[in-house]
């Protein structure tokens, strides 16, 4: 996509190895401001590693990752902390802090774990929980007292509470029944639209990718082998993408 704008996220030739295993072998991807992109691919193809490299949780062996034109590979930790203020992240398992109640989880990005202005924070938590369709009755509950779907929603509320510019979704529908998964997809779509954020989702759930994303990229063998608008997903002309989206055992992917 050549819009002339500085991409919100830009990966250039990103390589990441773990010992002998090369997980990312020159990933190139660009996400424009306000765009929602989904990276699809099988298990172990490096989707989560890509996300962790963008979040600076992993350091690539080579290549460049820019956020709003600012390089994060090799950046100082203070600089990375500043860039991370733009991010919100929904982890696959929620990754809620089980030692604290829901309202403190939701406002953690605002307080960095300190007990400051509890009344205002509870109010902010309530507002964000309402956005994800949850009531104030769960404010004082612990994450382990919630169902899987509710935990995902609380994690989503936590991700949006600091009003990030970019939200990452790591397998947002994994572990949910089809109805709950569709509800989460709807929720993500409306939140991304309402908040005007840039979104990057990694998933192997095709219905989720088609619903959430404007554009889809397929990661295979550590490289982006295809990308295009979501409407072309089932008409990509790429045998790897065809096999993956149709869920066939026979084909070029072994």
């Amino acid at each position, binding site marked *: 996509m050549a819009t002339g704008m500085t991409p919100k996220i830009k990966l250039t030739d990103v390589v990441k190895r773990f010992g002998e295993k090369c997980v990312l072998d020159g990933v190139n991807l660009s996400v424009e401001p306000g765009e929602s992109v989904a990276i699809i691919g099988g298990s172990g193809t490096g989707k989560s590693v890509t996300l*962790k490299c963008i979040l600076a*949780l992993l350091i690539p062996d080579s290549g460049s990752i820019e956020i709003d034109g600012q390089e994060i590979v090799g950046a100082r930790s203070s600089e990375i902390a500043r860039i991370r203020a733009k*991010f919100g992240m929904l982890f696959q398992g929620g990754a*809620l802090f089980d030692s604290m109640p829901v309202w403190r989880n939701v406002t953690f990005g605002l307080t*960095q774990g300190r*007990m400051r202005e509890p009344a205002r924070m509870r109010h902010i938590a309530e507002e964000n929980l309402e956005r994800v369709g949850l009531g104030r009755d769960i404010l004082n509950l612990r994450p382990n007292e919630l169902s899987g779907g509710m935990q995902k929603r609380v994690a989503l509320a936590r991700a949006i509470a600091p009003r990030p510019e970019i939200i990452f979704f790591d397998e947002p529908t994994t572990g949910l029944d089809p109805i709950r998964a569709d509800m989460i997809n709807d929720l993500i779509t409306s939140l991304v639209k309402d908040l005007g954020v840039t979104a990057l989702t990694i998933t192997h759930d095709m219905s989720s990718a088609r619903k959430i994303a404007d554009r889809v990229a397929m990661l295979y063998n550590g490289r982006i082998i295809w990308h295009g608008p979501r409407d072309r997903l089932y008409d990509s002309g790429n045998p790897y993408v065809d096999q993956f989206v149709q869920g066939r055992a026979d084909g070029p992917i072994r």
Partner: protein
Amino acid sequence: MIKAIPAFPLLAFAAIGRLVVGLLAMVGRVTKFALTTIVRAVTPPYYPARLFAQIMEIGWFSLPVVGLTAIFTGSALAQQIYTGGSRFNASSTVPAIVVFGMVRELGPVLVGLMVAGRVASAMAAELGTMRVTEQLDALATLRTDSYRYLIAPRLVAAVLALPVMVLIANSIGIMGGYLLSIYKLGFNPASYLATTRQFLEWDDIRMAVVKAAVFGFIIALMGCYNGLHTRGGAAGVGKATTDAVVSSFVLILFSDLVITIVAFG
């Protein structure tokens, strides 16, 4: 012509080499971890509420087990010294040796080992679970430094709490020896207390406090290091917990020996 070196000695050297390099690498990693934690602990932001919570967790909630260990050990020590000393008419040394034994050695070491068993394992399990459930990654994305938020409060709390616990354990241990000596062995209470006071020295108390602070540092360091470096799922958490306890035990006993030799050697 160069004579071929037999394969077995080469393999043995290679194995020893790998072991030594692995050990040195581990020492390097733990040292870096400790230095990073110390630097983060003395620079803001600070988390006083978390420090207080950890002092309660490490100190207050360990008191029952530490107290019971101390009273049983002090009493058993008195009985052993009395039985052994009777063979060469030295049973009157019971108060002096109970004081020496508890304050210089048994108090700090037993408190260190008991707290290591209870706290290092809990730290490793909690942090390990946070690692495998991506809670540590979540902390980073929420712009919270896990060293400052999770590790530093535990390390500082353990260094502060252990000396107080050792002083309490020493007092309870000496009392255990006193009670057994008075009510079972028939010692005179006044002369027992007088001998105890006579042999209780400030230098010994100071050394016990120093040992306790070092043990506290070791316990928190091993618990947090192993927890933070957990790999894999539930099995990884189990391994981290075991490693935390075993390494704490070994390092506590080793550092106790070093401090004792430096102080009395």
